């Protein structure tokens, strides 16, 4: 297959490769939502939506919206067989209690400790915490899916978050449109670069210190 060309789709496609058969997954708003486009039904992945259900299917087609059936971003969605509804208390038993295998979420910044910041830009108000802090604290594996740099060209992978952190938890993987980076106790390890991107280009767009091992790979299908 050819890899997706748009940055967001490339990220979503690469994140999808991290998911294993039968896992329970929560996808954050934005780019993470696109991950489901790259998951085949044979993978038997169950998507949880923190507003109150498991078994989320594709977005609803226009005109086929089902009343009171939206995802955590307020979009109309569908169900798959085996779905179940519940209240917010149960939703966060699932989230904080370690019953979700993988959370994929965006970030404003990630730092050398593997901490992410994704809820608040001081002086600019919103967007707010939502379910993010609970998801980062409670999920078995946390994957940050985000574009490598900010719209103004500044790095998002930084020595230390300047924005308030979401949790004191080292995330498990960072997937961007330029690279795949694994936080470790030794620091951020560059694992892969995107097709057509060099290691030097990644380093240039990253203000955090990156450990570059000999075996850096390239994202491949």
């Amino acid at each position, binding site marked *: 297959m050819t890899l997706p060309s748009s940055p967001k789709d490339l990220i979503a496609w690469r994140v999808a490769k991290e998911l294993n058969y039968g896992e329970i997954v929560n996808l954050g708003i934005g780019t993470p939502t696109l991950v489901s486009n790259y998951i085949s039904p044979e993978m038997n992945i169950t998507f949880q939506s923190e507003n109150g259900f498991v078994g989320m299917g594709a977005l609803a087609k226009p005109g086929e919206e089902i*009343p009171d059936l939206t995802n955590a971003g307020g979009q109309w969605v569908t169900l798959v067989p085996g779905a179940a509804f519940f209240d917010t*208390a149960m939703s*966060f038993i699932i989230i904080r209690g370690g019953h979700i295998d993988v959370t994929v979420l965006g970030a404003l910044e990630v730092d050398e400790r593997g901490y992410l910041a994704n809820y608040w830009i001081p002086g600019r*108000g919103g967007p707010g*915490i939502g379910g993010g802090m*609970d998801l980062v604290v*409670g999920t078995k594996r946390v994957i940050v899916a985000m574009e490598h740099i900010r719209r103004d060209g500044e790095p998002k992978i930084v020595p230390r978050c300047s924005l308030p952190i979401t*949790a*004191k938890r080292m995330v498990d993987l960072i997937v961007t449109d330029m690279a795949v980076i694994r936080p470790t106790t030794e620091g951020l390890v560059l694992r892969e670069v995107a097709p057509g991107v060099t290691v030097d280009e990644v380093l240039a767009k990253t203000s955090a210190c990156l450990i570059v091992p000999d075996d850096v790979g390239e994202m491949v299908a």
Partner: protein
Amino acid sequence: MSKVKTVQEAMEFIQDGMTVMLPGFLGVGTPKALIDAICERRVGDLTVIYNDGAFPGVGIGKLVRCGLVRKMISTHTGTNPELVKAVADGKIEMELLPQGTLVERIRAAGAGLGGILTPTGVGTSVEEGKTVMELDGNTYLLELPLRADIALLYAFKGDTAGNLVYRRTARNFNPIMATAADLVIAEVENLVDIGEVEPEHVVTPGIFVDIVVKGV
């Protein structure tokens, strides 16, 4: 005994300055007729407990636009620029919480618990002013119960005794908020006779509900 009243009658229990719990997630699962009535009567200076900012003019967003909210206890405001602006301008005071913490604080109040220990928020801005506890090498925040004077629920179906069932993702905060307010008013889309909700399917038992109003 039927708990059914008109929206107008129910409004007599809502007063300026009250703390009001409103269920909903981006407007889904929020009572409409009751919010409209609050706006019409201009009951103000409210402290509102609601998950998010919904959208401008929708759900809680309607109360914000009407200028009736003094303080919000919430998890997320970003979808409602009018709310974000009101907070930035100092017109609405905001207490921001993680969603799982918000629901557990409400549940603790409803369940008669003195608080809960959560790992969520440890080492973040949420920690400020809270008791931090170490247990078995893990760190937790002590989060305290959160009650309201009044909770305004939205249910898809309810009987005259207040037994409620919800529809799809409109359930969200409704069942928990039903437990934690001095007065609970449920707006039901479909009002049925007592006994017409299958006992096995009731999500909120009528004992939690004081007043039932028919939605519009």
